[in-house]
């Protein structure tokens, strides 16, 4: 294995470890909320989305490290898709709040939207990198 290959594997391991750590933290917060018989803290969603991000990056890193035209296309398409997904999430969240299905503070709503955006963006990149 050459030096470059070794660095890529190290980064992949680092991202996987980071993902596991975030997953552990998110899992802990979810279990704690479950035991307290309440909804999880809104930060839990962001932490879990960071876990999704880290796992996706561990898969994508070898391709992302080379900024060629295929990766640029995947990035652009992923961001384009995420923009429409954001509009959809906002619409659904708005409906849920308007019809009082859920009661959220502004910070909770932002945390949920952020988590959804991060997860959508990175998973769409993974799907697109498998497609193209």
């Amino acid at each position, binding site marked *: 294995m050459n030096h470059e290959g070794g660095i890529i594997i190290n980064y992949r391991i680092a991202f996987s470890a980071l993902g596991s750590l975030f997953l552990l933290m998110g899992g802990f917060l979810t279990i704690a909320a479950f035991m307290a018989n309440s909804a999880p803290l809104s930060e839990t969603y962001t932490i879990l989305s960071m876990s999704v991000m880290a796992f996706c990056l561990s898969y994508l890193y070898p*391709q992302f490290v080379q900024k060629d*035209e*295929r990766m640029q296309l995947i990035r652009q398409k992923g961001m384009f898709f995420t923009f429409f997904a954001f509009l959809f999430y906002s619409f659904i969240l708005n409906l849920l709040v308007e019809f009082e299905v859920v009661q959220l503070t502004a910070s909770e709503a932002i945390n949920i939207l952020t988590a959804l955006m991060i997860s959508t963006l990175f998973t769409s990149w993974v799907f697109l990198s498998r497609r193209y």
Partner: protein
Amino acid sequence: MDNKLKELRETHGYSQDQLAKKLGVSRQTIISIEKGRYNPSLPLALQMGQIFETPVEDIFFLDGSPD
């Protein structure tokens, strides 16, 4: 769009990795182009034409018109 990249690459004795390095793209990009999942940009297609010393239309062609 279809292409003869794999044939040309093998005829000229390049591995996917070698061709990728010559073109300044990732190996995954070469794999995707060969499988027809990704259509390269015009500059990249022209670069390929230069490397294989052949017109671009001999490498890439519309579906159903291989020659």
